[in-house]
């Protein structure tokens, strides 16, 4: 009996936000604290569930550490299967941590602005969790749409003309992507006759040549849809406008939405086009590698060109997408483990920066900032003033330190986890194969990652100096504890990543190793028996 209940834990990260989101619609407008309490409880419960799933996966509860939930008790290739493995658990944890952070931040102001903010937030979490858990290609489409529909609503939250314009373009891009997604799914179905990811992977090695062509075309079209979401160049032009227009807690969640595209590419490519896929092995990975490299280059140019903090964060997210895509394109366990470390660290850092931007904007005096810009352009030296030793208010000190932390993480400088992430990537790249030389793609990648770090340092320093030092602070900032706490917590997690880098890296290496042995996944999903009919239920 207990075992059955434990298996139902897998579906809870989808059901819980759905039910809470629906419940929250009933309390629209009135009673803010009740609405906040419901959504905070739901998000915290998702965190606890994710922790439980992590325990189950780590304590070898399921054979092969892969738990399969058969929806409506249909066996795998026919019904929809939900699959929880180390990667899915990792992404669930990341989602709930970011969710708690963004939700706490929005308690101060943004949650009170619109009508259905909290419901949409829960639906967004439902879509994200579902996309990470599902083992079925069409079901993935459905969860993508749930996630996107919620993000359209959230993007328009705090309704003004900038947001409506950004929202319009974001919606068109994503509707187009959904069309491509459907075409890709239909082609994959036509080629393999199945939509279950494990079943597709099992059938790929023995496909006849004509169907293999069709599968490749389908996979390429699917990849266009996913890569638009993960903002690969030249499909990334929607990102800076959207991110800088969104309200801060929404922008923090959108950082994670970008990572869903990367997760899907990693999941499908490591499963379907693994080394065991016969002629299809490694399909399209060269394109992925070079696409990622060009994306990094695009991001670093954008970083130099940006003045606004929102756009700086956007281009930082683009650089992180490019790095991840090109590193996972190698399809090797050591590199994937390093990429996952980078994914965790960069997602938390950019999300924290998105939240921080609004607080920093409060101390910025637009006129003074413009003056500083002009002085810099014409190289006007300030009259050296006598340093009077002004006491720095606590709030300002917090902002400055938090900004420095974010900048260190985004640029990948020691001592924080951004540096460790980049270091592990370099280490994995250089030691991946002792015999074969790294080749010019590998060196290009390493050089670009280093240069992009440098670009981030320069761009963020320029912004930081101009904001905190060069301009007279117009007014002392007012920070509420509930706004500062999430930023502090997200940065603290990154510090923990640094201190506990060893255990975390070992977990990520296990994750990557099981990802690159798809036979286990395929076997677990396809051999999961249906729950037998006990006969005692009416």
């Amino acid at each position, binding site marked *: 009996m207990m075992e059955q209940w434990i298996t139902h834990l897998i579906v809870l990260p989808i059901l819980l936000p759905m039910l809470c989101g629906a419940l929250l619609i009933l309390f629209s407008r009135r009673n803010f604290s009740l609405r906040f309490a419901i959504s905070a409880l739901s998000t915290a419960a998702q965190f606890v569930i994710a922790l439980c799933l992590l325990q189950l996966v780590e304590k070898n509860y399921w054979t092969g550490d892969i738990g399969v939930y058969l929806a409506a008790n249909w066996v795998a290739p026919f019904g929809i299967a939900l699959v929880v493995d180390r990667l899915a658990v990792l992404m669930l944890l990341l989602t709930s941590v970011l969710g708690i952070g963004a939700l706490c931040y929005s308690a101060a102001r943004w949650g009170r602005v619109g009508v259905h903010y909290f419901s949409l937030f829960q639906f967004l979490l439902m879509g994200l969790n579902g996309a990470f858990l599902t083992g079925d290609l069409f079901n993935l489409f459905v969860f993508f749409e749930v996630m996107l529909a919620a993000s359209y609503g959230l993007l328009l939250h705090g309704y003004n003309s900038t947001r409506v314009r950004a929202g319009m373009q974001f919606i068109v891009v994503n509707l187009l992507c959904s069309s491509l997604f*459907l075409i890709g799914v239909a082609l994959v179905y036509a080629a393999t006759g199945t939509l279950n990811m494990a079943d597709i992977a099992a059938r790929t090695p023995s496909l006849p040549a004509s169907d293999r062509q069709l599968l490749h075309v389908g996979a390429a079209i699917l990849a266009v849809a996913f890569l638009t979401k993960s903002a690969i160049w030249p499909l990334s032009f929607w990102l800076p406008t959207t991110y800088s227009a969104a309200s801060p807690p929404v922008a923090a969640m959108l950082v994670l939405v970008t990572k869903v595209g990367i997760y899907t590419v990693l999941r499908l490519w490591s499963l379907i086009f693994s080394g065991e896929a016969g002629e299809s092995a490694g399909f399209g990975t060269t394109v992925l590698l070079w696409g990622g490299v060009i994306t990094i280059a695009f991001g670093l140019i954008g970083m130099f060109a940006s003045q606004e903090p929102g756009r700086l964060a956007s281009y930082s997210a683009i650089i992180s997408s490019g790095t991840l895509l090109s590193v996972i394109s190698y399809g090797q366990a050591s590199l994937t483990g390093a990429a996952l470390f980078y994914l965790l660290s960069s997602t938390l850092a950019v999300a924290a920066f998105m939240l921080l931007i609004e607080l920093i904007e409060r101390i910025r005096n637009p006129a003074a900032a413009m003056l500083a810009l002009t002085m810099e352009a014409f190289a006007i030296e300030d009259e050296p003033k006598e340093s009077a030793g002004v006491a720095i208010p606590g709030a300002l000190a917090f902002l400055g330190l938090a900004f420095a932390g974010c900048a260190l993480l985004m640029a990948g400088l020691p001592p924080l986890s951004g540096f460790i992430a980049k270091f592990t990537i370099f280490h994995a790249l250089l030691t991946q194969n002792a015999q074969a030389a790294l080749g010019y793609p590998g060196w290009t990648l390493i050089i670009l990652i280093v240069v992009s770090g440098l670009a981030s340092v320069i761009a963020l320093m320029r912004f930081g100096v101009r904001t905190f030092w060069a301009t007279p602070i117009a007014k002392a900032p007012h920070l509420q504890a509930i706004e500062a706490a999430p930023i502090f917590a997200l940065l603290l997690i990154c510090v923990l990543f640094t201190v506990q880098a060893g255990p975390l890296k070992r977990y990520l290496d296990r994750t990557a190793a099981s990802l690159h042995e798809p036979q286990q996944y395929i076997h677990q999903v396809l051999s999961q028996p249906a729950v037998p009919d006990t006969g005692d239920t009416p």
Partner: protein
Amino acid sequence: MEAILAISIGVLFGSGVWLILRPRTFQVITGLLLLSYAVNLFIFLMGRAKLNQAPITLTENIDPSQFADPLPQALVLTAIVIGFASTALYLVVLLASRGLTGTDHVDGRESAQ
């Protein structure tokens, strides 16, 4: 029949792409609608074009080639519902943008000419 379906999907898709690249929001939404029609037909066709045939049932010992594939039909239904809802949402945003900016240009302002 495949040829007719393929040509109509091609025409729908081509017109949709052309309309999406136009500067007016109404043209864009019409383009999106045409695209979703093309995509729905395409999914339908991926179950192989068959006329007047019942879907596969649970009866044993049947010849699958005599039956239509029911799965793409189910997929099309889902895709229609989702596409319809997102397009309706876009319609709302379109009207909001028209109200806020006073123009139906996708950039929210008329291009300087």
